[in-house]
């Protein structure tokens, strides 16, 4: 049975996504029998290229698709180069997983409430430093070229790439290599960039491509921070999809294929950039023992990460302040009074989405954990090397959500399925699986094989040593994987919205829906709830092993 786990895992991920993408592309070429059209035509494409401002939408998606990974990766590498082993590093390593769990929508709201002309930052420095009695009339949030969107994405993706890099680093034995380079006379930051960066990059390449696809196709972050005249391509596709005029479905289908193309072009640009930077690096390496730039690299690396942390902390602060603020006139730095009224008002609205959120995230994560552990266990028992098909796990992260989710919806409409909870849970599973796999696979594969061998020589069956040895030894990584999986599920917007047809609401789908009509206070209440759920998960992942193993000091550093 275990043997099938890996295959079913891949099938479960690949089939709906590939099928969804395929089906989504049919209407783009005029074929959509439910709307009475079964002739192939290029009408939708003609229409698409006449949409006003399409070039701008595509450009913005491309810009954020390329610049987000570029800047984020540069910051992460400079940070690792300059801070590895420092006190700051210890701190950041502890914070990186919870930071990753900060839901996109909540982060975007927090950022908007922090840096808007009337935001927390402006209030703190006004009127003393600026003389502003009223907010300055400058375009920050929703700016025309998506710079705030870019900024928000970078703040969000830096922790992700950092986590991926930290997971990959140990196999490069960085300390040893750096020592060698330093005995050759290289300064530490330059040494890292010269000897570690080139071998680390291939290991984080796939996560980087995930970032490219996400940044070029995000919907929820773009809805909150992105430009509006015109919006990004992904936001426009969603609005065409939701348009009462069903003929726009053809346009939406063509648009979603274009989105796929834009994401692919962003990846292609990246690959070209990769070649170019690789060439530069080789020249730089060949230039020999030069330490120019050590100071600058060190300064950027050391300051960027704290800056990201400060922005995130500021965003959380802005959300908390607004969630409890009474009347708060500009430019007061603080509200004139504090109140729990906003919480009292939302209490009755919170209960159903909260219940759904917990139900969906727990069930999709546990399902994912089951599948992932079964796959890893079968991989271990068959003692094969990593299955090559496992890269398919990344599929849900490599194809823009809006493309294949759109196809899945069309498919369910063909089959006549109604939106229901199990469909939403399945949709979440698609996105939770890769992250659970990513977070658990290294720990699972790196667990000392001798533990199982000892158990076997003591006469324990595979089953017994699985339950009594491997699972307890891996309790902490399993719980971390669960916390990450739940955090991912909690932050998902589009799968809930599309597969649940709006009838199944979660904290995130409600919070994003509130953008169109609620006060800043109410949005903040929802965002605070949204971001505290994953934190609860991470706290449990941290505290449960501490409690269970309180008398087992050997369990603290088995990872």
């Amino acid at each position, binding site marked *: 049975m275990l043997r099938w786990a890996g295959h079913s895992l891949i099938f479960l991920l690949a089939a709906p996504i590939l099928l969804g993408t395929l089906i989504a592309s049919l209407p783009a070429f005029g074929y959509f029998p439910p709307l009475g059209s079964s002739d192939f035509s290029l009408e939708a494409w003609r229409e698409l290229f006449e949409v006003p401002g399409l070039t701008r939408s595509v450009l913005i998606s491309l810009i954020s698709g390329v610049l987000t990974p570029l800047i984020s990766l540069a910051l992460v590498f400079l940070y690792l180069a300059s801070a590895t082993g420092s006190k700051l590093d210890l701190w950041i390593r502890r914070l990186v997983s919870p930071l990753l769990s900060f839901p996109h929508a909540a982060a975007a709201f927090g950022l908007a409430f922090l840096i808007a002309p009337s935001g927390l930052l402006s209030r703190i420095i006004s009127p003393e430093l600026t003389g502003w009695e009223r907010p300055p009339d400058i375009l920050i949030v929703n700016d025309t070229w998506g710079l705030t969107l870019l900024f928000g994405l970078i703040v969000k993706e830096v922790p992700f790439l950092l986590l991926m890099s930290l997971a990959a680093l140990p196999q490069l034995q960085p300390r040893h290599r750096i020592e060698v380079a330093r005995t050759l006379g290289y300064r530490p930051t330059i040494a890292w960039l010269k000897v570690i960066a080139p071998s680390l990059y291939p290991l984080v390449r796939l996560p980087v491509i995930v970032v490219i696809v996400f940044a070029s196709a995000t919907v929820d972050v773009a809805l909150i921070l992105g430009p509006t005249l015109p919006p990004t391509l992904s936001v426009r596709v969603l609005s065409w999809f939701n348009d009462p005029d069903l003929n726009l479905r053809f346009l939406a289908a063509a648009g979603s294929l274009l989105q796929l193309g834009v994401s692919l072009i962003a990846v292609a640009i990246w690959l070209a950039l990769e070649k170019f930077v690789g060439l530069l690096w080789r020249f730089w390496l060949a230039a020999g023992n030069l330490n120019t730039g050590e100071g600058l690299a060190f300064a950027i690396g050391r300051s960027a990460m704290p800056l990201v942390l400060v922005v995130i902390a500021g965003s959380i602060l802005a959300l908390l302040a607004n969630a409890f603020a009474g009347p708060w006139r500009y430019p007061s730095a603080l509200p004139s009074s504090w109140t729990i009224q906003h919480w009292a008002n939302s209490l009755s609205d919170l209960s159903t989405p909260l219940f759904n959120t917990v139900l969906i995230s727990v069930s999709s994560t546990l399902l994912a954990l089951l599948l992932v552990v079964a796959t890893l266990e079968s991989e271990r028992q068959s003692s094969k090397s990593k299955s090559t098909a496992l890269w398919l796990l990344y599929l849900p992260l490599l194809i823009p959500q809006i493309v294949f989710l759109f196809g899945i919806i069309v498919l369910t409409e063909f089959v006549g399925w109604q939106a229901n909870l199990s469909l939403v849970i399945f949709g979440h599973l698609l996105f939770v699986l890769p992250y659970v796999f990513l977070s658990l696979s290294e720990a699972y594969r790196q667990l000392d094989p001798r533990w199982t061998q000892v*158990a076997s020589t*003591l006469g324990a*069956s595979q089953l017994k040593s699985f339950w009594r040895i491997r699972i307890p030894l891996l309790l902490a990584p399993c719980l971390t994987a669960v916390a990450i999986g739940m955090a991912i599920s909690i932050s998902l917007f589009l799968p809930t919205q599309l597969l649940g047809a709006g009838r199944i609401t979660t904290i995130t789908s409600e919070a994003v829906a509130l953008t169109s009509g609620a006060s800043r206070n109410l949005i903040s209440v929802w965002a605070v709830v949204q971001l505290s759920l994953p934190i609860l998960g991470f706290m449990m992942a941290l505290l449960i092993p501490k409690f269970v193993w309180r008398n087992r000091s050997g369990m603290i550093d088995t990872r």
Partner: protein
Amino acid sequence: MSNSDLELKDVSISLGGKQLLEINCSVGPGEILTVMGPSGSGKSSLLVYIAGFLAPVFESSGSVLVNGADVCSLAAERRHIGLLFQDPLLFPHLSVAGNLRFALQSNAKQKNQAISEGLNDIGLAGFDDRDPSTLSGGQASRVALLRLLLSAPNAVLLDEPFSKLDTQLREETRTLVFDKLRASGLPTILVTHDQADAEQAGGEIRTLL
């Protein structure tokens, strides 16, 4: 008292077409066969092969007979061959008694009694509820030995089990381990670098090239 024997018949292990080792030998009850050889001579692969964990990249032939029966087709847990590694490898999430209980057959009677008698026997009476990570190196080695004995093996493999202990402790532990194994009448194969190990084992010495 076990009184079983272990025989290796035409055992050959190779990697990528290159033969690593070839061995024929027989170990009687209470005897200790020592296998020596430089790194890369395949002596660890030999133990892994006998225990049943040889990775599929290796090619192997020959048979391992325990009390005359070939165990090669059996899964590791059914071979009843115990193995002591360089590290004691006490399961960190179980107490000392938990580690020992893990080794007992599920149908064993009076488990608690067997455990406390065993601990008494190796000079660790009352250590039942201890966290294994609080034990000293020598104590942990003794618990690992007791755990192996409680699993009632028919043969024992030792993979440089004393190499990580300091000189004085090594002496003590070695004596205890060899005495216990001989007293249990178990056929044993010892893999080591250390000439002193081989001498004290007192049995046949094979050197791999």
